[in-house]
């Protein structure tokens, strides 16, 4: 019973410590953030117009590497003669976007999503998955 009390004391202290530490970080973050957001708001007003000027490109960026974009645009221009505009380029299928933790996903999930477009090609027989065997394609 004494042991249980001791354990309860340990837990009480421990959970308090965790809450305290993270609350302190919260407080510090909020304080620091205050300083940074004040600055941003002023800038934001100035920057309002130029930002939405390239929506097509911005919408496309999560999945498709920019130099591919350029290549695709060039190909389209060459084919259709210049009067057309690429409005949407999407990487197919189970795209996750390049939200910032993508790298960590890769580490902890262990299946590569797509380092390159190459991974998206249909499997061609037994050799098709060699890129997952670590060989250079």
């Amino acid at each position: 019973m004494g042991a249980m009390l001791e354990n309860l004391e340990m837990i009480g202290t421990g959970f308090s410590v965790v809450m305290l530490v993270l609350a302190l970080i919260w407080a510090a973050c909020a304080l620091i953030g205050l300083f940074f957001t004040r600055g941003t708001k002023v800038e934001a007003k100035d920057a309002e117009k130029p930002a939405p000027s390239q929506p097509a490109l911005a919408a496309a960026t999560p999945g498709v590497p920019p130099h591919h974009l350029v290549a695709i645009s060039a190909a389209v221009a060459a084919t259709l003669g210049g009067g057309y505009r690429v409005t949407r380029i999407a990487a197919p299928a189970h795209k996750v976007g390049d939200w910032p933790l993508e790298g960590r996903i890769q580490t902890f999930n262990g299946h590569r999503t797509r380092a390159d477009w190459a991974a998206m090609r249909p499997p061609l027989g037994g050799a098709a998955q060699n890129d997952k065997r670590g060989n250079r394609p």
Partner: protein
Amino acid sequence: MDGTATETSKLEQLWHLTAIADVTWQMAVMWVVVGVLFYLAVYRKFEPLLLVPIAFGALLANLPTEGLINAPAGEHGGGLYYYISKGVDLEIFPPLIFLGVGALTDFGPLIANPRTLLLGAAAQFGVFATFLGAAAIGFSPMEAGAIGIIGGADGPTSIFLANKLAPHLLAPIAVAAYSYMALVPLLQPPIMRLLTTEKERKIRMRSLRPVSRLEKLIFAAMVTIVVILLVPAASALIGMLMLGNFLRESLVTERLTKAAQNELINVVTIFLGTSVGITMTGERFLNGDTLKILGLGVIAFGIATACGVLMAKVMNLFSGTNKINPLIGSAGVSAVPMAARVSQVEGQRADPGNFLLMHAMGPNVAGVIGTAVVAGYFIAWYAN
């Protein structure tokens, strides 16, 4: 006659060169366990980066390979894993993994919405509750602490703490931690739905502000200082995590960031995984304790999930119009980034236009810090 005798002795000799006589029934049973782990890792994609090496290490542990792990004796050197396992024994590998994790982690969503740190803190209650349960069913306090940390859903931290407090339980704790991390998409949703109303699940959160490089750098340094001052025993984990993150966010040390994100973490992962697996001998693994640990692990995950969700609901009582969707509370268990994805999926189930992913990343990475703090607290309490 003589010829036959020689023949016999030769065969005997041959037999003694082999190790077939050393196979025990526990080994055979463990081969099945290894098979199950391989199946889960390869075909069900349960954290394969860790479970494949762990399972292969377990296979080696359950073959007569004492030559792989024996200590040096006289002029004979030790086995290969006598040396490689030093990285676990001496608590070197987990902080190095954290160096890579820090280099791979973006704390931006947390910095933009620092309230969510409390969700990451609340989820740690699962660790303490499980500690209590483990102590109640007969584990020693140090063992109970090592088991409870499974609820933190953070592999390297679990290995770090288990090695410190209860090295004989390292293998089952690591296996439980990584398996349940992979099971997060199955374990969490029922609990999340049970504890939230439809209306709560539909809460849309304000979009996150962008966070500048300077703010991220200050954050990394600040967390290092605060955590190490308050819980100095967590310094190896938090120090390396924030070193990796500082390298990443400084934007001027790209070579080093890449090395931490790739070379270092990959090589260490192979060694860490197999070192953990190679402790998984039949005698150590095939006993009641392992089953108890696997059971307590599920409980730990469940409580952690529930506490995260409930904390979000409590915080909403004080948040005016800027409500938190309680579905992101469950992400506080860490299990980065799976738990955040679960929040996203559950959120879209209630409202297809609701994007909770980035919001859930806040408690998700807060949970990593929280679990490291808990580990440091346990070490300070018990290991000195």
